[in-house]
């Protein structure tokens, strides 16, 4: 019989302890992040970890005093919730160069291209059917984005 081995691995990007040491000595923030993490929005916390990785990398290559605005592009064919992203963003921004920054989340509708007649069309309901030739073999050409589009800084 094989013995079960258990490893506890918390995602780096949503590890409240790592976030705490990286961003702030603020106990209130730590508790808030822990609350978020255990309650809900863990998915958006992971994504926000990605947002802050990109921000850190970008500002390291530019002279930036403050980040004023962060623009994301989020495809409808992902599971990222704009409201949850907003809430988590504020928690991540506290006591950082991004404090007070505005988060703009642009939802990107799903578009497909018919593999038979090449028609490109918006897929409104997630049912992939070509309105021209009724074919169901559809390539997704838009709607899977999870992008940081731009930063407004000073």
């Amino acid at each position, binding site marked *: 019989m094989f013995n079960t081995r258990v490893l506890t*691995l918390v*995602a780096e990007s949503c590890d409240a302890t790592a976030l705490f040491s990286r961003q702030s000595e603020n106990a209130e923030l730590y508790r808030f992040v822990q609350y978020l993490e255990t309650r809900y929005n863990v998915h958006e916390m992971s994504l926000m970890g990605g947002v802050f990785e990109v921000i850190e990398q970008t500002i390291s290559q530019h002279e930036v005093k403050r980040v004023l605005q962060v623009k994301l592009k989020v495809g409808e*064919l992902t*599971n990222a919730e704009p409201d949850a992203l907003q809430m988590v963003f504020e928690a991540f921004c506290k006591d950082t160069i991004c404090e007070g920054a505005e988060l703009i989340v642009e939802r990107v509708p799903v578009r497909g291209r018919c593999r038979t007649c090449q028609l490109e069309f918006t897929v409104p309901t997630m049912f*992939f059917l070509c309105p021209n030739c009724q074919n169901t073999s559809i390539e997704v050409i838009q709607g899977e984005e999870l992008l940081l589009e*731009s930063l*407004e*800084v000073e």
Partner: protein
Amino acid sequence: MESNRREIEVMANLLSSNDIQAEVNRAHFRKNNCLAINVLGSPGAGKTSLLEKTLPLLIVDMHVGVIEGDIFTSKDADRIAAHEVPVIQINTGGGCHLDSKMVSKVLPEFNWQATDLMIIENVGNLVCPADFDLGEAFKVIVLSIVEGDDKPAKYPVIFRNAKAVVLNKMDLEALTDVNMENMKQDILAINPDIQIFEVSCRNGNGLQAWISWLSQEVTTYQENNG
């Protein structure tokens, strides 16, 4: 004072660090001629039950390893270990999905000279795991019919990205109002290429077709890879 307000174009993928590690994992599986699959589904859909029924038949012909994802316990891994299959439990400590870095950390625990199939059972959840590539060859969804025939339409992302869906608890069909035709129609509308298996892990019906298909997928992968 002159403002230095300006915009920086970035256009960077938020999941790039996960996706890069996923590609490293994928290369690891390929190098070791091992088909890796990511098994997803709601809590209680029967993911672990499906593995319990599948493993005894699979291990006759091949070496299988299992990675179990769970928030806190090792209950699932204990069930798998009882079938004499090497298994590692990852506890995410509250996290709603496995990510590619977690998977990479447990890969050294397995014997890669002798693993034809690696089954990664994700945390029970129909939402978050869909966005996180682990480096698998493909995703398999386990959906129990008692969850309702509206679920594919309500969680389309996960169905769009899977190669197969196992509809479990078919033995309960007569006791529910589920409309199997609607359910299958919706699944195929979202993903016309998906394989659908109707099974009951409880009475064993339909499992043979699923197991044959999975064995064939391992063979095809290894032939194409070799």
